[in-house]
């Protein structure tokens, strides 16, 4: 038998009083369509719409600008990149990775907005 005292063990019992399962404040406010709920919803919709409009603006400027540029400076069409005319490189090849990049950026941010929103409305009132 060793002389060392036995390791201390904390003994706990089940809680006598169950804590009331609090519904998350945010979802309750949204369900009741209160002023606070409207603010929660408004912030989500506004964030997503702003993100969508930013992506569409990038699309409009980058793609929508091309006809105007070529209309004003038709000589650009004669420029070649490794033997291929510039318009064909831009509209035949490069445009597709660009569209995928825009789409990927959108999906990532949109999912982050939703994640943040879920966290926000799930916070329990203390």
């Amino acid at each position, binding site marked *: 038998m060793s002389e060392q005292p036995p390791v201390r063990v904390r003994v706990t019992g089940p809680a006598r009083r169950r804590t009331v399962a609090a519904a998350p404040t945010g*979802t309750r406010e*949204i*369900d009741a*369509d209160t002023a606070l709920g*409207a603010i929660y*919803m408004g912030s*989500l*919709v506004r964030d*997503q*719409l702003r*993100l*969508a409009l930013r*992506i*569409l603006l990038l*699309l409009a400027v980058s*793609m*929508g600008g*091309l*006809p*105007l540029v*070529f*209309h004003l400076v*038709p000589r650009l*069409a*004669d420029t*070649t990149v490794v*033997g*291929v*005319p*510039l*318009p*064909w490189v*831009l*509209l*035949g*090849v490069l*445009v*597709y*990775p660009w*569209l*995928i990049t*825009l*789409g*990927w950026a*959108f*999906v990532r941010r*949109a*999912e982050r907005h*939703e*994640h943040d*929103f*879920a966290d926000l*409305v*799930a916070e329990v009132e203390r």
Partner: protein
Amino acid sequence: MSPDLSAVPGVVAVTLVTLATLAIGTWGLRFSRTTSDFFVASRTVGPRLNASAIGGEYLSAASFLGVAGLLLVFGADMLWYPVGWTAGYLVLLVLVAAPLRRSGAYTLPDFAEARLGSRRVRAACSVLVVLIGWLYLLPQFQGASVTLTAAIGAPRWLGAVIVAAVVLANVTSGGMRSITFVQAFQYWLKLTALLVPAAFLLVVWFGDGAPDLTTAAGGGADSWSLPLGEGGGQGLYVTYSLIVATFLGTMGLPHVVVRFYTNPDGRAARRTTLVVLGLLGMFYLLPPVYAALGRVYAPELIGSGRSEALVLELPRLMLPGTTGDLLTGLVTAGAFAAFLSTSSGLAIAVAGVLSQDVTGRRFGTHRLSGVTAFRVGAVFAVVVPCALALSSPDVGVARTVGLAFAVAASTFCPLLVLGIWWRGLTASGAVAGLLVGGLGSGAAVGWTLVTSGTTGWPAVLLGQPAAWSVPAAALTMVAVSLWTKDQAPAHTHRFMVRLHTPESVLVDRG
């Protein structure tokens, strides 16, 4: 039909594609039991399978044959077609994809009715879905006739009848569930059917010492590589109007929208769309290769009026002998897959709407069951445009498809975007906007199809209406909605919550 040996690969290819389509459709039948299976494959399709199916459904004859032919003849300004058809999915992704899935509706009219609580809006949407669907089906059947005539010398009616029969067999037997497998298969078939011959042809081109493709036969290189319509300001207008129609029209095509309901949730709908962007981008790299090679090896097609046959004929022109014949068989198979998959998707969308609003109604004391109503709807969806394709003269594949895009952009695009993002939309506003957009764009392009006497700016404005008809429809919707502000449906708040909150948040979705 004379026994011509050169027709053998084409006949074999068409037979194989038809058999494979029917076999996969029948295999999918094992999984189709309920009405929900028929309409939306019970919403259990994962992003990768669903994206392949969307790609397979979306890449019609216009993409497979039309783009290369247009590029060969008109040059770089035609690149806006494939670019617009792909960018349309980006616009759909950022504005519509996830909320549309979360709306929980089966079809476009369902969405409109749920959002606005109005039978009038529903009726207007149903009419538009059926009209746009038939408009888009008509050129698919005509294209099938042209292809079979060109590839194997078949009589004109045969192609349309084969496509109609196969589509009808598949749609009525398995509905959306079996069509999903068929269309996913057909995307990869179409990609292979363009990719493999393109690789062979590029090897031949290198073997010939890589002749310069830009300065070859037919017209000056300048206008061929300029990405603009001809005629200064008019050309600029036509190009921009085409951009508006294709970028915004994609989200309003009934067969595209109906596929989004098959995703399990909003997040999956977004990811599916992103994969679709990749699949379409991969496919559209190929038609320009055929067009550029065609400038050197098939210059006789440029002025012949048969430029759409470029993809079908180029392998034989560049590679005489068995290899050329085999590659011709492969591209014929791809072209046939294009007709089958697009027509199937459209037939599903139109049949879904018809069965809910027409064939599923009570007639006297009799009422058809869900699945039977869907099957009867499918018969109407396919037989009407097929009969039109057989009886009417060739309207022109690209023009009719363009009309469908312009009408979709001028009607469903403003309805979806305003319905999802603006609480103020009312039923009266929606109906007024749909009328202005639908009648404006429909009348304009209808006029262009019927007469060719108009010239100058009127012809340009009527031939490409999207640039004015889309803003007109959107402004009408907003103005009339503001006018009838007190009619805004009471459940708007609950519906907006449903559209925009992620599924992980437990809220009351109405």
